[in-house]
């Protein structure tokens, strides 16, 4: 075992959970290191929520072992609860209470932690402290939910789809808050089906599908493992003066060249070398370039390559 394994913040071994005839979690192994932000990425129904709720001690597993901060739910539940911050998917906090009243309620359950206004400051809801929860926007409600997870000054934060259903601006605001929390050196496990969220926030990512991990690593590693880092698309040539595709394919650092409806798509590892080489080759052939686009490969491309499906397909 690696030295990291002995002091893992979360260790999951051969975890299994079945609902009637659906296997939600299928012999899953996971390890989250202290101080890292670990992402469980996958489409709806991949078993992310079931996995995180088992780790949170809310759902019993059928089989397998879960160790959180070196403790077990069966024997140390009380002590564990004091050290975890948890945000569930789709909790509706009471509309009739104010933001501060809600925070004070959650704060009263924990032995230590910042006071109510301080937590509200952390999630930038000071101006709304006296507003009823029912009058908050979706993004504000989500920040309040995050605040409820932070009241006990947790060592380990569990976030289940923290930005689902938010508009882009509210998502970015929440990401900034999570990044700030990461700076304090505490551990985060988050689930998401947004690959940009995982790429931005997570040091390491496990891609889940059908209750299993199908890939594990840093977002860079995962992208590098299945495809080159950049994709280039261009259109060039005319009927009278067609492009010599074989010569393009022969350029160093270019692979997987596909020709489709007059447009060429290819993978390159080093954009700064491949593009000049491509332009030089087109110049040598004297075919005019009519279009050129590049984009970086994303975790979405990883998922598509591994499963043949898109992340947001239901």
């Amino acid at each position: 075992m690696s030295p990291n394994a002995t002091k893992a913040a979360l260790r999951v071994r051969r975890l299994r959970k079945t609902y009637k005839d659906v296997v939600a979690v299928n012999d899953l192994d996971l390890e989250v290191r202290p101080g890292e932000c670990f992402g469980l990425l996958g489409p709806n129904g991949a078993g992310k929520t079931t996995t995180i709720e088992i780790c949170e001690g809310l759902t019993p597993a059928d089989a397998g072992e879960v160790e959180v901060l070196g403790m077990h739910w069966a024997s140390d539940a009380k002590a564990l609860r004091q050290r975890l911050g948890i945000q569930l998917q789709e909790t509706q906090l009471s509309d009739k209470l104010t933001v501060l009243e809600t925070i004070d309620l959650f704060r009263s359950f924990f032995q230590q932690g910042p006071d109510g206004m301080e937590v509200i400051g952390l999630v930038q809801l000071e101006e709304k402290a006296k507003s009823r929860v029912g009058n908050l926007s979706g993004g504000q409600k989500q920040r309040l939910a995050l605040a409820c997870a932070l009241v006990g000054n947790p060592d380990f934060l569990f976030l289940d789809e923290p930005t689902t259903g938010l508009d882009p601006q509210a998502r970015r605001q929440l990401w900034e808050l999570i990044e700030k929390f990461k700076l304090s050196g505490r551990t985060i496990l988050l689930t998401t089906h947004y690959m940009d969220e995982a790429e931005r926030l997570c040091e390491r990512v496990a891609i889940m599908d059908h209750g299993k991990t199908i890939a594990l690593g840093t977002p860079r590693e995962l992208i590098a493992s299945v495809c080159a880092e950049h994709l280039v698309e261009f259109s060039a040539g005319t009927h009278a003066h067609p492009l010599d595709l074989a010569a393009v394919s022969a350029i160093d650092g270019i692979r997987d060249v596909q020709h489709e409806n007059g447009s060429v798509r290819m993978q390159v590892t080093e954009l700064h070398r491949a593009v000049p080489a491509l332009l030089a080759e087109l110049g040598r052939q004297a075919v005019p370039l009519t279009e050129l686009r590049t984009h970086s490969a994303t975790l979405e491309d990883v998922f598509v390559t591994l499963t043949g499906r898109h992340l947001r397909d239901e």
Partner: protein
Amino acid sequence: MNSHPLAQLTLVRFREFLREPEAVFWVFGFPILLAAGLGLAFRNRPAEVLEIGAVTPQLTASLRTEKLLDVRELPAGDAGTALRTGKVVLVAEPGANGTVVYSYDDTNPEGRSARMLADRAVQRAAGRQDPIAASDALMREPGSRYIDFLVPGLLGMNLMGSAVWGMAFGIVDARRKKLIKRLMATPMPREYYLLSFALSRLVLLVVEVGAVLGFAVLVFHVPVHGSLTALGLFCVLSSMSFCALGLLIASRVQTIEAASGMTNAIMMPMWICSGVFFSAQRFPNVMQPLIKALPLTAVIDALRANMLQGATMAQLAPQAGVLSAWLLVCFFVALKLFRWR
């Protein structure tokens, strides 16, 4: 500042209740309005004056000596119509040879009363002396009126409604919103959650019983003959029993609709059978043991015995037993069934 979790949870219960104006109305306003409305409808009015008609001035004059009759002089032609249309219950007219003829419907009690009153007035006017002197002692004591019977019934109904509803709605709503699950993810001790419902109920109980009882005593002079301590203890015991019943209803239900259906199905038979508006004794004898075993019957019987007959705590032991049994059985079954998510 970090206050006790039980204090915070109980505060939340109050805030949620007080910020729901409808709930406040149904718990406080409605019983008072109902008592006021029914009290007015069934108030004891002075003995009713009967309207009759007479066709001659002479008869009219002699009939007017009777205070309980309101005599109208009518032309002979109109008298029949007035009688048929119910404007008067009796018509007096002279017959042959100085006799008097009374026309009225003898199946109508008012008609028969009017016949006796009218005849007495006519005979006395003609000089009749009663051989035996008689006087009246009028019975209009508080404690035997309908409003006196009604108020303990309304109190019991209110105790049941607010406890069962408060409990069932509060818990099912929190479960539906996944708020219970969220609370379970904190170190909150579970028993505090349930205890906060019971505590807030006890405090609201004082206000609620105080409002209805105070209104009844001040406005309708409804008596409270028994000890107020015993009355208070009984209200607490019954409220806790109904809380346990509400907890049982809420133990598994996932939606407000299901909870509301179950709550109505359980409370409706008690509204009808337990003697809120009329005595439960009116139901057939075979049903009586069953009716006596209902918690609302026990509450209402005990409240009536305390308020109207001044029964002591010891005399209310059977009702206390019934309520305690409901409390224990419902509470422990509910704990067994309860789903914390």
